[in-house]
């Protein structure tokens, strides 16, 4: 049985500018290991109907500001950047030219214009009226008295289009962002710095999607193949469905899978995450358009008996031993050496999962074996540090392990899964 979850966009209203970073990081960490830094804020509300009209007074007088048509084209391009590339349902709609040269947010005509006065360090500003979290009207003025505006700015000039992208972000309801490459960052430099903000970035897009919802359709997950794999994870799994997108996330139960590839909108390959327990789990896909899941679509099977090593044993170096077997099985390990001194000093194991370490009075080679239990998925990780003792000569050090495959059985009955000989290089 499959279920389809459509998630409506959550909107924030009012004039609050609470930064969302902390919530994004904390909650994001629950579902992904991707680093997150999201810092958009909200400004004055949202537009009803996910759209707003605007007028342009192309009255810039600076030499680089271009003619009427060029000024209109630059400001329209700024609006189109949000409409076309924001990934949200919001649309800017150009309504024509206006002769307005003053702020009057309640007149029903939202106008972008140049003001011949001085703004000091303020390049432009947006005045916005709202009621109950709904934007009623806005106007935007560029201070031209003490700033040089251009449609293709050089040093000392500011880009009309770039700064308009920033201000139109305010006009649609976004506040400033602390992400330095976002168009909604509070400040900019002249020349290329102001050109850079023509293109909205991920944080800007996240903000407008937050306010107005995504323009994408919800994904649908139809199959997961193969439908089973070992509890240790790592298998490559192919998902099929519709409306998949780059940047989609996939979960097996509560664990995030690594997305390897998204092929078109219908296929996605992922690496299965490690299981929390054996058995079936739901598989979920999530895009900006929504979320879908297939119930019990993937089954975690018992791990095969195996021992694997990572790293080369060297003095003062750590190498990892990972043992797979039945869930909660007892694992016994011993270390010895075939040649060299009779006594090996300073050998120690660290059990990565805080398992209880106990010494069993039975000798495997030169060392008594130690035991620990595999976890509920049938896995345990051990790390071994080769001691820094120049008096020792390590040759043909061997690690011998065995997994008890049944409760109540004697150690002698353990099935020896691996008898690994490693050479320690000083």
């Amino acid at each position, binding site marked *: 049985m499959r*279920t389809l979850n459509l998630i409506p966009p959550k909107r924030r209203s009012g004039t609050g*500018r609470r930064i969302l970073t902390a919530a994004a990081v904390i909650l994001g960490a629950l579902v992904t290991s991707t680093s997150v830094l999201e810092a958009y804020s909200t400004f004055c509300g949202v537009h009803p109907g996910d759209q707003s009209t605007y007028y342009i007074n192309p009255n810039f007088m600076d030499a680089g500001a271009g003619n009427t048509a060029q000024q209109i084209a630059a400001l329209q391009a700024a609006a189109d950047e949000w409409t076309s590339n924001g990934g949200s349902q919001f649309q800017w709609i150009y309504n024509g030219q206006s002769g307005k040269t003053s702020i009057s947010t309640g007149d029903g005509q939202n106008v972008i214009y140049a003001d011949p006065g001085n703004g000091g360090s303020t390049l432009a500003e947006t005045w916005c009226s709202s009621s109950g979290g709904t934007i009623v009207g806005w106007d935007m003025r560029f201070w031209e008295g003490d700033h040089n505006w251009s449609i293709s700015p050089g040093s000392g000039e500011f880009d009309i289009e770039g700064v308009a992208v920033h201000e139109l972000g305010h006009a649609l309801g976004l506040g400033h962002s602390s992400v330095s490459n976002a168009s909604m960052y509070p400040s900019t430099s002249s020349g290329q710095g102001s050109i850079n903000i023509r293109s909205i970035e991920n944080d800007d897009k996240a903000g407008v999607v937050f306010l107005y919802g995504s323009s994408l359709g919800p994904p649908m997950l139809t199959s997961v193949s193969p439908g089973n794999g070992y509890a240790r994870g790592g298998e490559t799994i192919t998902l099929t469905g519709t409306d998949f997108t780059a940047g989609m996330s996939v979960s097996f139960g509560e664990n995030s899978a690594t997305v390897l590839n998204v092929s078109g909108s219908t296929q996605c390959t992922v690496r299965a995450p490690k299981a929390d327990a054996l058995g079936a789990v739901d598989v979920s896909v999530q895009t900006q358009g929504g979320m879908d899941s297939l119930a019990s679509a993937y089954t975690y099977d018992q791990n095969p008996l195996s021992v694997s090593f990572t790293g080369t044993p060297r003095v003062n170096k750590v190498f990892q031993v990972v043992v797979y077997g039945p869930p909660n099985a007892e694992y016994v390990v011993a270390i010895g050496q075939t040649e060299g001194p009779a006594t090996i000093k300073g050998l120690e194991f660290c059990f990565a999962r805080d398992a209880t370490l106990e010494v069993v009075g039975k000798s495997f080679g030169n060392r008594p074996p130690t035991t620990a239990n595999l976890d509920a998925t049938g896995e345990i990780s051990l790390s071994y540090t080769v001691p820094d003792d120049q008096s020792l000569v390590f040759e043909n050090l061997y690690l011998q392990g065995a997994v008890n495959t049944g409760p109540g059985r004697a150690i002698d009955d353990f099935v020896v899964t691996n008898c690994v000989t490693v050479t320690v290089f000083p």
Partner: protein
Amino acid sequence: MLRTIRPLLLALLPALAMPCILAPPLHGGCFEEVSLDTLARDAGQIVVGRVRKVTTVMEEAPGVEGLVPFQEIEIKVFESWKGDLVFGDRVTLRFPGGTLPDGSMLTVSTSPATEDLLDGPQLLFIQEDCFGPGLHGLCHKALGSYSVERRPDGTVVVQGQEGHPVARTHDLRELRERVSEIVPEATQPPREPRDRNGGERK
């Protein structure tokens, strides 16, 4: 099996999908980039204080049709870094924005958020008399105010904001020394802020 809808995840999804963003170049812009040096030099007064009263007045403003709501913020000065204000003085700042008579809100992108100013003591870079005698504004508008916080370990810090002249968190004393290097003529003996009962903090 019906899964629980997790609406917050949708809002978070764009961030989950994007890499950690750390590096310049700086983008953005209501404001031209302003350095701390410029901010300190341009300010007529630099104080640490706390908002004591907020009122809204309706007045005309240049380039704006009709009456505009202005927030008037009365600040009690704890500490003066530049200018002639002293401990205990009251200074009134003004900036456009606020509630209109019909209950609607006017918000201006370059004004500080009033709720931020109410959140404890502030370091304020003040532009004098910009709205008339005794009616000051923030120097470089929203770039001129920063929250001051006392941490559990007793240190007092100024919370900077990305894209502002004070972009990082600074120890208050260290920042004061930095400002005094920029504007050496602006020296006032430091005073400890009073607690809510008017007593000196120890």
